[in-house]
């Protein structure tokens, strides 16, 4: 039986899949190949680290912690109006 060894990813192939990788949307085999590449390719590893930090930053800074309390009152009203009809 001929079985070719799975080809390793080069930097371009990692780059092409990096977003899906960070979103945890790759197959186990693809994940392994990416992690293998990152284990010896420092430039790619640094870039991926940076992307992770950037994603954290966006999530952290774009999330509104506060919302108008009037929304809670509005919610009560919506529910009660419905009840009274």
């Amino acid at each position, binding site marked *: 039986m001929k079985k070719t060894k799975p080809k390793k990813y080069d930097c371009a192939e990692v*780059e*092409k899949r*990096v*977003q*899906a990788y960070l*979103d945890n*949307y790759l197959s186990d085999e693809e994940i392994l190949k990416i992690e293998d590449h990152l284990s010896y390719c420092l430039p790619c590893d*640094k*870039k991926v*680290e*940076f*992307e992770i*930090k*950037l*994603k954290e*930053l*966006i*999530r952290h*800074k*774009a*999330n*509104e*912690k*506060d*919302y*108008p309390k*009037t*929304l*809670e009152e*509005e*919610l*009560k009203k*919506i*529910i*009660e109006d*419905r*009840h009274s009809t």
Partner: protein
Amino acid sequence: MPTARQLEFESLIAPHLSSLYSTALRMTHNQNDAEDLVQDTLYKAFRAFDQYQKNTNFRAWAFRILVNTYITAYRKAIRQPQKVSYDDLEEFYLYKKLDESISLQETAKEDFLENFFEDDVKDALENLPYQFRLVVLLCDVEGFSYNEIANIIDAPLGTVMSRLYRGRKLLQRYLWSYAKKRGYVLNEKD
């Protein structure tokens, strides 16, 4: 006295008020419109609550109503063609730019991120064309999966992925231009 069904609706939706409002704010750009959008969403969600199937993903269900309400209300405004060129969008844009412009140490690159103003990140997001903004918010801020987003925006998975990837690349460009404008980056060549 509210009925059990009403109380159930309230207890299911209350934990999501802040994330619904947060997304509404990024989509509408201002607090009054965001509040109106969430109010309409609450009203519609409550009226449609009978159609919600118990033990399915309530959060995604509520966001789907938010998105539909947004699109209906802003139909005219968002129908304008989006003039964005995607041809030369590349991965790792921000990192590469930082690398080219200054020989920063890795720690300095991370410090660079820390120095971003919250408002710059919000502005950059709010400037994305709405289709891109929506998927980037749903994925990167709200943490929905690709499949959940496909369901929320009612689009195929491939569309979700291409909008998300392009949106993020575009976002990195905007962040880079903010960084230059704010003087976070010195010695920039171009």
